[in-house]
């Protein structure tokens, strides 16, 4: 039992929690505010790198480093939002994708800061309970994930949630009702991106060493496929989707099915190939994912 709690299972669950949170945040951005963020990994990586740099090179305390990393991600996303959020969907998509690519390039090229491909480390847990450290840290992550889900649930029922929904539904109409849609979108974008940065910072101790290849476009894509598969309109869409994709592939298949070592390197290829196929099938035959679309409740 002791071994189980400090080992691979807990580690896997902690990562699932991180990705479930990211998918839920993407659900907020895409389904509620209508922001097509294809640079999730950019904000995630920015949070992760700025946190690790502050902690390892700046010797800043853990909690302060997390807060500062959130603020850095928030400020950068606010600036990006100012530039692209009042353009149409395709421009937002390409703009955020370009942003994520910039972050990935910089993490590789700025060797003096990030050690480039050598990796940045070591990022330790903020406490030391011996073998139980991982378990305690995962429980903290669980608390944050549950809080995020609760927030999402509450937000969708609140007037502010309806304002965001009205913007994504019909921005012109919302403007004509006197809402400053661009400003609201940008505030919400900044807030959610800062949270993505937060989960990036929280993921760093799990990796303990940070490499540029961790923040490749595959992460963004995985989160998107998870959300689209699970159900982009639903609160639990991200959760179901992450379990059905990352949970199934990275953990169940790779742990349960013994893969001969000579085939080990083709497993990621098969994985992304199947992800791509899944995304195509979902969009063609079940556009709202496994959970489907729920009719909006009429607010009395």
């Amino acid at each position, binding site marked *: 039992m002791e071994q189980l709690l400090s080992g691979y299972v807990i580690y896997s669950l902690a990562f699932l929690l991180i990705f479930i949170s990211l998918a839920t945040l993407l659900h907020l951005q895409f389904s509620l505010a209508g922001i*097509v963020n*294809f640079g999730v990994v950019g904000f995630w990586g920015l949070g992760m790198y700025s946190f690790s740099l502050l902690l390892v090179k700046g010797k800043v305390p853990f909690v302060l480093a997390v807060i500062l990393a959130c603020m850095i991600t928030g400020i950068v996303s606010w600036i*990006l939002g100012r*530039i*692209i959020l009042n*353009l*149409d*969907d*395709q*421009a937002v*998509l*390409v*703009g955020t*994708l*370009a*942003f994520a*690519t*910039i972050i990935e*390039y*910089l993490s*590789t*090229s700025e060797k003096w800061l990030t050690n480039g491909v050598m990796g940045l480390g070591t990022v330790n847990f903020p406490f030391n309970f011996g073998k139980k450290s991982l378990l305690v840290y995962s429980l903290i992550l669980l608390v944050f994930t549950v809080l995020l889900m609760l927030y999402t649930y509450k937000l969708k029922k609140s007037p502010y949630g309806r304002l965001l929904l009205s913007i994504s539904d019909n921005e012109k109409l919302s403007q004509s009702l006197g809402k400053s849609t661009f400003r609201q979108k940008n505030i919400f974008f900044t807030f959610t991106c800062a949270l993505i940065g937060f989960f990036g910072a929280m993921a760093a101790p799990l990796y303990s060493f940070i490499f540029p290849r961790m923040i490749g*476009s595959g992460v963004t*894509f995985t989160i*998107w*496929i998870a959300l*689209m598969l699970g159900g982009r309109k639903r609160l639990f869409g991200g959760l179901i989707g992450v379990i059905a994709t990352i949970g199934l592939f990275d953990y169940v298949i790779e742990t349960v099915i013994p893969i001969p070592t000579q085939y080990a*390197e*083709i497993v*990621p*290829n*098969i*994985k*992304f*190939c199947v*992800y*791509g*196929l*899944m*995304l*195509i099938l979902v*969009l*063609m035959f079940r*556009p709202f994912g496994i959970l489907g679309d729920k009719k909006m409740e009429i607010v009395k």
Partner: protein
Amino acid sequence: MTFSLFTSTALVLGLLEAAPLVLAAIGFTLIFRLNGFTNVAYAENITLGAYFAVIFNSMFGWNFYAAIIPSALLSGLFSVLTYLVIFRPAFKRGVGKTELIILSVGLSFFVRYGSRLIFGNDLFNFTFDNPSYLSAFGIGITSIQITCIALVVVISLGIYFFIYRTNYGERMRALADNENLAMISGINPTKVSILIWFIAGAAGGLAGVFYGAFSFVSPSLGYNLILIIIMVTIVGGVGSVRGSLAASIGVGIITSAVTLLSKPLYGQVVLLILFIGILKLRKVRI
């Protein structure tokens, strides 16, 4: 490095960089103009074009120039296949513009990692018969690079002529502008669309072949270029073949100039930052 040497190096390297980009941008623009969405899966067209040429060149032992023709045809066919199997049904189902892009990303991943399963993660090089080394403005250049640039010029002029001067080009532009009106005028939308997707795919495949000829062929060849291609088409004015031509040459020269001045990745970073700024300045609907 003197200023004149710097300028000529930037120009020559920039033109080399731009040559395949011109083809890719033209093909991408054609699909964008016709169907109005950013086709990310176009990246795989480029990669597959290069792989087809590798098959003919390295495995069958064909001459490099002879391998170009079947690879262009095959990548054109692949493009038509994606249109008929994925995108046309999606249009019919009324999938939204944003969802179409996500769909094309899915297709892109499917094909990219599918081709990795077939070709492996290795890099490939083309084999050339006795290339000769020349010098242009004091910069070393191979005869292959010169031939490729000449081919790019001929092919892009051909496509340009086709779109702006022939009957089929006119039909395509009519279909892009107003589908219903075009259909009333007796234009068969499926036929014209298939033709356009074929030309776009062939152009993309050729771009991949030339990129591979200048450096090497890797599974992420196309995907590494797609952002730059999207950027070029936006900067060049969306749907304008002429604009893309000018913009790709500009982009090539800027990248090589920045790369000469600093580290290789900075060229890309500067371009992307410029690009985000341009998105804002032009406020174009892409």
